[in-house]
């Protein structure tokens, strides 16, 4: 008679052959959404929250300007400062900076340049108004106050 080998154990292995595919998919997602930061931000960035957010679709038309208290207080003091690219600037330098940024945008789209103001919650209106005055002089009049989405209520 035939021999019985006892119960045949069902296979209990999860197929792993598709694992690289899954990982690659995740990899591609992050590669596409990632944006390597070329500047280190040296000012505080506690971005305020709002509900009526609008999105900027064309990333190439956006330039960033950061305002906030310096992170290294002992070196730069407590007064809020303006940072662009990798350095602190004074309001009077903004005109030059805007023109330099504008030169990097294709000519037919220069009027659509948007300056994204990333301002710390605790900064005062005074310094922001100074920046706005300079932006008006530089004719970079489309601005965006970067905010986060507020969680509660619709």
């Amino acid at each position: 008679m035939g021999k019985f080998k006892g119960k045949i154990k069902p296979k209990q292995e999860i197929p792993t052959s598709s694992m690289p595919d899954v990982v690659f998919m995740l990899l591609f997602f992050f590669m596409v959404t990632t944006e390597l930061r070329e500047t280190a931000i040296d000012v505080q960035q506690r971005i305020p929250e709002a509900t009526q957010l609008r999105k900027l679709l064309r990333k190439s038309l956006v330039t960033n300007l950061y305002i906030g208290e310096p992170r290294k207080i002992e070196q730069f003091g407590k007064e809020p400062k303006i940072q662009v690219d990798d350095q602190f600037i004074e309001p009077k330098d903004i005109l030059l900076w805007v023109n330099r940024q504008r030169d990097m945008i294709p000519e037919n789209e220069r009027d659509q340049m948007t300056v994204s103001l990333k301002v710390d919650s605790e900064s005062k209106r005074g310094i922001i108004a100074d920046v706005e005055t300079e932006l008006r002089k530089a004719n970079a009049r489309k601005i965006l106050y970067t905010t986060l989405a507020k969680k509660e209520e619709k």
Partner: protein
Amino acid sequence: MARATPEIPNASMADIAFLLLTFFLVTTTIANDRGLSIQLPPPPEAVPPTDVKVSEHNMFKIQINSSDALLVEGEPMSDVSGLKEMIKKFITNYGADPLSSDSPEKAIVSYKTDRGTSHKRFIEILDIIQGAYYDVYADRAGVTNARWREISSDLGNPENQAIYDKGRGKRPDGTVEIPMQLSIAEPTKVGN
């Protein structure tokens, strides 16, 4: 004669992919280009000073002082939950209440802050003012507020442009029935 097929070991492929994945996970900052968008007025020198007379009742005045206290139409306000409705009512008054705006075209929301006002407070109130306008537009265009903001960010699409024009009430001559007339005044200099 059969040639030996060369084989690349691919068992480590997953490891390599994981390594790359980890790198991107760590370095990634999902771009945050969202916020409140406004258009600044032209530089002061470019506009010849004209004496524009605006009737008192066509102005909705919002002021914030250096200690972030709010004054709406001359009255102190501590709870801002009703402000949005007030602004909406003001915009769409159409002369019904003689103390409020004559028409949305003439209505101006004047927003004045101090140099000592915090950015957080400024954004909070700006959010409410813009929300009031977006609500009015969205209502007229028959879409939700969120959809309206999506549409107005992407006007390249003619369909969106049509909805956008409908919401703002664009007339054939190019003028707009309900322009967002938000005047952000130069801040006063009490606290700085």
